[in-house]
């Protein structure tokens, strides 16, 4: 059988001179190459960095369609990058490579997922997305990350450049969420923030873990006990806090200095130097989470939010952002009975700041289509783009993340059209001015089987 042979999206120059990995392995298998001859190309760790460029580049792209992080569509526009930073972006840019109308889009942020924390969902031996008792404050998602995971490569190739990693839900306090980029190859290069927030679960997602609560009554009690046992933040304690002093809750706090990581993290939470992400879907659980933030004066975000439209004004009044998703549009559980497509649009209309999340690992690449779907149900296109880019950066408190501003790291991608459209293809991703490797295990399999071997 013959099928048309397509060129790989972006051939990678091979240091050995034109012999790709598979050809080299085939030659090795046929006895035509010795292992030592293979070493130079096959065993170069840089091959697994997720980058093609070794260093931050300077380049110009023009005659494209620039989609800004505010969702503006700029025709006949381009970008100029020097030393990995954006120098100029917009309509004035000329010269350099002609984009032929292709789109330039800020790198997308998956604002809540388990990317890179396991390879195979059904194989426990590959899973590092959390374990232990119901409350593991000191646990950090980034400690479960494999920076060379294929799941990062696949997400990267669809324009996901950053992700907020959280331990899998299903326990009361599964641990801390951290920020990664989807290339780097080493932990040092991949992890951007080891800890962005402490994750606390409400509702069905809080039931589980050794000794954990199995009812909403137990969840509220256990969270109260957790916070009562948390050490007083020094700064706040010194200046006092209106409305909090003298209550039984205030009086029951420990005043001794923290001597464990558990205490240290909770102190940061109390001091609002570490955010709290409350995973909550059912409307009343979102209300409980808002009360929890208020009672302890926390810097909180809601994550999930399947029924958030029902309490949109309360969320807006609390000034609380929502890491919305995974896309839930249906009564598939008793925590989602009132889930609906218009959720994002209604939250946006109420003035709630949004970021979007896949909640998954292998599914992270579907985020841009999920965002597109929200635009079919009332969310303005520019709001969807903002939520996927700068909006996520702002909610996570990471300056520059998701932005296409002069002076920020040149992290963006080229696509054949609107990134929210399913027919658009991501052509090339850059992170901090370095071309990302667009090859994945999946593109290699595609290339290998475009034409079938005789047996």
């Amino acid at each position, binding site marked *: *059988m013959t*099928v*048309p042979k*397509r060129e790989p999206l972006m051939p990678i120059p091979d240091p050995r001179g034109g012999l790709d990995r598979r050809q080299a392995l085939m030659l090795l298998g046929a006895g035509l190459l010795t292992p030592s001859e293979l070493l130079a190309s096959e065993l170069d760790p840089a091959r697994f960095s997720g980058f093609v460029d070794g260093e931050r580049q300077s380049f110009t792209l023009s005659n494209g369609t620039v989609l800004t992080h505010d969702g503006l569509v700029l025709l006949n526009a381009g970008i100029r990058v020097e030393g990995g930073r954006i120098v100029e972006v917009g309509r004035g840019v000329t010269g350099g490579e002609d984009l032929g109308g292709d789109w330039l889009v800020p790198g997308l942020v998956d604002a809540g997922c388990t990317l890179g924390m396991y*390879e*195979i*969902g*059904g*194989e426990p031996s590959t899973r590092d997305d959390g374990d232990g008792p119901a409350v593991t404050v000191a646990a950090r998602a980034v400690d479960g990350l494999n920076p060379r995971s*294929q*799941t990062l490569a*696949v997400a990267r190739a669809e324009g996901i450049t950053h992700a907020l990693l959280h331990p899998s839900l299903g326990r009361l306090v599964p641990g801390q969420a951290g920020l990664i980029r989807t290339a780097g190859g080493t932990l040092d290069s991949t992890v951007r923030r080891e800890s962005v927030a402490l994750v606390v679960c409400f509702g069905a997602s809080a039931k589980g873990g050794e000794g954990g609560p199995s009812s909403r009554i137990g969840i509220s009690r256990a969270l109260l006990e957790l916070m009562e046992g948390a050490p007083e933040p020094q700064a706040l304690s010194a200046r006092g806090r209106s409305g909090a002093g003298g209550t039984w809750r205030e009086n029951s706090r420990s005043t001794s200095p923290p001597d464990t990581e558990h205490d240290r993290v909770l102190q940061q939470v109390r001091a609002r130097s570490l955010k709290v992400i409350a995973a909550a879907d059912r409307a009343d659980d979102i209300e409980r989470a808002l009360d929890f933030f208020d009672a302890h004066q926390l810097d909180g975000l809601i994550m999930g939010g399947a029924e958030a439209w029902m309490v949109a004004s309360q969320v807006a009044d609390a000034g609380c952002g929502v890491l919305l998703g995974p896309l839930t*549009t*249906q*009564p*598939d*559980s*008793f925590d*989602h*009975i*009132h889930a*609906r*497509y*218009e959720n994002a649009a209604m939250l946006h209309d109420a003035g709630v700041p949004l970021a979007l999340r896949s909640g998954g*690992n*292998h599914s992270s*690449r*579907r985020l841009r*289509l999920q965002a*597109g*779907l929200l*635009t*079919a*149900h009332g969310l303005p296109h520019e709001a969807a783009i903002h939520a996927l880019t700068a909006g996520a950066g702002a909610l996570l408190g990471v300056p520059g993340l998701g932005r296409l501003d002069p002076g920020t790291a040149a992290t963006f991608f080229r696509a054949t059209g609107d990134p*929210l*459209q*399913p*027919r*658009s*293809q991501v052509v090339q991703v850059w992170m901090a001015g370095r071309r990302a490797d667009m090859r994945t*295990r*999946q*593109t290699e*399999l*595609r290339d290998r*089987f*475009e034409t*079938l071997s005789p047996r």
Partner: protein
Amino acid sequence: MNLLARAAALCVPLCVLMSPALAVDFAVVHATVVTVDGPVIQDGTVLVTNGRIEAVGARLPVASGVPVVDAAGGWLTPGLIDLHSHMGVYPWPNLNAHEDGNEMNHPSTPQVWAGDSVRVMDPAFSRARAGGITTVHVIPGSANIVGGEGVVLKLRPSRTLAGLLVEDAPRSIKMACGENPKRVYEKDADGPSTRMGNLAWMRATFQSALDYREARAAGASPPVAKDAGLETILDVLDGKVKVHVHCYRHDDIEGVLRTMDQFGVKVTSFHHATDAYKVRDLIAAHGAGVATWPDWWGFKIEAFDAIPDNIRLVKEAGIPVALHSDSPDMVQRLYLEAAKVVGTGLDEASAWETITMDPARLLGLEGRIGSITVGKDADLALFDRDPFDVQARVQKTWIEGELVYDRAQEGTPDAHP
């Protein structure tokens, strides 16, 4: 034939179009019509009579008095078809007590029928209708080597199974191999716990039916009692039942084909088949089809080699491909999943086949559904724009001419119909 008779004969098709007496139910006008069996028609008209497609073409005349739906440039497509659904047998909300899709007490349960598990008022049905889905193949899960018979439903609003059933649809059976059966039965004394065990069970199931037939024919004493499950397997062996096999890995596909060939059984389609691209020549030679997703991968090791180009490669090899959902979530947007495959380089006409004509063929209902063709059931979906545009929404869905979903009236269907 005299002149008068000839004139009368010529007149008949025209009269069918023009005469209100012949009860044209309604006409859809000014639509971009994706017929699937031919080119896309601009400014198209579709006439529906007695639940069937009466005529289709560009700017056809519509008799006065016929109710008209003005599509205003929207896109009219065949009702979409999902070849792999567990709606009804794993109804919403997901609860332990709602797990009615796998009869997990024996590796071979050919005697069960998915129709007996269907929760008729599963709210998933109304969501699927709102996504332009008109026909679904609801099948047992993949716990068993032989899971049981499937059922073909048309998603009319109904409080009875009878109201959903496509009664004359060809029979189908769900079989499985690979990880699921061996995981479910690994601790059973005689259940399969390996891939070789799976295929041995498949062979033993077929052989036991042949032995049963022989014993019955021989008039053994005492007489061999009639066994509903073995009767079903005999019908499979006799080619009276379409065989759909849950199968991911390429060597599992090859192994199933080897086993089926041994017993002369034809596989209608391999479901999930994330490795199908690696052995598409074998699948084509057997004459089987494939049912799969565009981009699900990695949830288990046998799905680790899934690639977005699978559908394109298999379809280009001439194999019918049903883009299936296996999910009450995805089924609401099957048209956008097909659009993703266009992104891999598959032509749009072929992408349309994967959610209409190809699943119709694999159900054995190609003469009745799957395209906007004169004489076929008037199962239609009207979108407000090109359905491969992410902003597209279904405005109306018809089943056999009956309006079963109307966004103007219903918006997004509610949790409780």
